[in-house]
């Protein structure tokens, strides 16, 4: 699929700040191009880890590689930001810690989009969407999962 065909999955809240990824984590930041979030997993102990590194922080195996994840998870914690740190941030928005379904503790900080602030709570089911950051990079953001689980 091209990026245009994936348009339904794009978040469009930008322009977000772009990270300067290291070589070890580029695949995470580029995975939105294919419409599926890819996280790093250890080929030796089988556990997922984040952030990506050239070694498994648990078992020190070098057999780490990226695999697609389902893109579903839950809000582990959140904060609704009201302070316009940047001029475009005039409206309240939710920063979250998302926990992916693949593994307890597989978490990272992200941002909710297209979600009513009144609905934001710990445990809210969410699904990944991508915001292009330029230079082939994408931010994996999240939106409240629909009733049918999609």
């Amino acid at each position, binding site marked *: 699929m091209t990026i245009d065909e994936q348009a339904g999955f794009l978040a469009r809240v930008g322009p977000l700040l772009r990270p300067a990824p290291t070589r070890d984590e580029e695949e995470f930041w580029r995975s939105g191009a294919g419409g599926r979030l890819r996280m790093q997993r250890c080929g030796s102990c089988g556990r997922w880890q984040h952030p990506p590194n050239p070694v498994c922080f648990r078992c020190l195996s070098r057999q780490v590689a990226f695999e697609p994840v389902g893109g579903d998870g839950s809000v582990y*914690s959140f904060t609704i*930001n009201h302070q*316009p740190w*940047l001029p475009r941030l005039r409206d309240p928005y939710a*920063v979250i810690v998302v926990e992916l379904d693949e593994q307890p503790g597989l978490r990272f*900080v992200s941002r909710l989009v297209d979600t009513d602030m009144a609905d934001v709570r710990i445990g809210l089911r969410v699904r990944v969407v991508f915001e292009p950051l330029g230079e082939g990079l994408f931010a994996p953001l999240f939106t409240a999962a629909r009733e049918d689980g999609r």
Partner: protein
Amino acid sequence: MTRPERQVVIRGFGSSQVGRRLPVSEMALTVDACLAALADAGIGRDEIDGLATFPGGGFDTAGLAGPGADEVHAALGLQTNWKFGGPEGGQLSGFFSACLAVAAGLARHVLVYRTVGEASAQGAAGRAGALAGAADVAVSGFRRWLAPFDAHSPANWIALYAQRHMHEFGTTREHLGTIAVNNRRNAAGNPNAVYRTPMTLADYFNARMITTPFGMLDCDVPCDGSVAFVVSHVDTADDGPNPAIGIESIGWAMRHRPLWDQWADMTEMAAWDAASHLWERSDLHPGDVDQVQLYDGFSFLPLVWLEALRFCGKGESGPFLDSGKRIAVAGELPLNTGGGQLSAGRLHGCGLLYEACVQLRDQGGDRQAGRPDTVAVGVGGGPTAGAALLVRR
């Protein structure tokens, strides 16, 4: 166990004026604090053979770092045998490193300082202004995992921990406000505090929201100021004009992956590691502590420290405050007697170390909380922490 902290004392300490947008340079503030500390210790400039600070030079963050150790070395004309400035050991790392250097014999008298100029550097645009202009630059360092998701401020990062604590334990905004009101009340007795106007819980709830659950009065106040200490070998403890402060133990452990969003249990922080380390190295127990000076960059952090230091059970810090009675100057466990960073100014942890020294010398004036023999200092939030037990000798 070898305990190098028992081989040293804080022989003197000093502070510059602390305020909002003071019309002097960061170096002038640093010199004020350092010369005050030398005089207090009764140590001449030529006797100083070590220098330490956190985070040291090379930072472009507006006003956060203050002058680097090299600059202060030059300005004061020191002849050092040992020098340290570095950002990755936590806010007390300059102090801790000085203790190690003296105990190891690399230096005899180490000057430790911490200077901030955030109020002037941020200017009229406030904290948000410090981020302006960042939009066109790719984010590197640890912020690359936060800023692309619009988590721009430590207020956001720590709010994520606070919200989880509230969810699991029923901690409330009233608990957070109790910390803010307590500290403001104490600041009224501190002539060098930035905000001394009395404040009520109603004022707290009326302040504008920053990032839930933090409103304006949950966030500390950027300031201009400097504090300094002279760390000397214990053999010289009684050679100065003023009583030296003893160091029972330090806690410098940060055992978990130091990443803001990778804490296994986000109701805890690195404070738990540093606090454990502190008690492992001490002959004392939480019940021996007379008062606490706990990092309040945000109102939630003293709650984390109270739990980490085992003054109460995990999740029990909110009710432990007893609506503020327990932590008041006249209470069972006075907290942040000088007003803390929330009201006295954000000296990035070292202001709390300074206040502990003031209290152990009974120099607190209107804010003096009894005659403490043991004061616990806990500094840091999120993945960074350091703790110390200071004692009357």
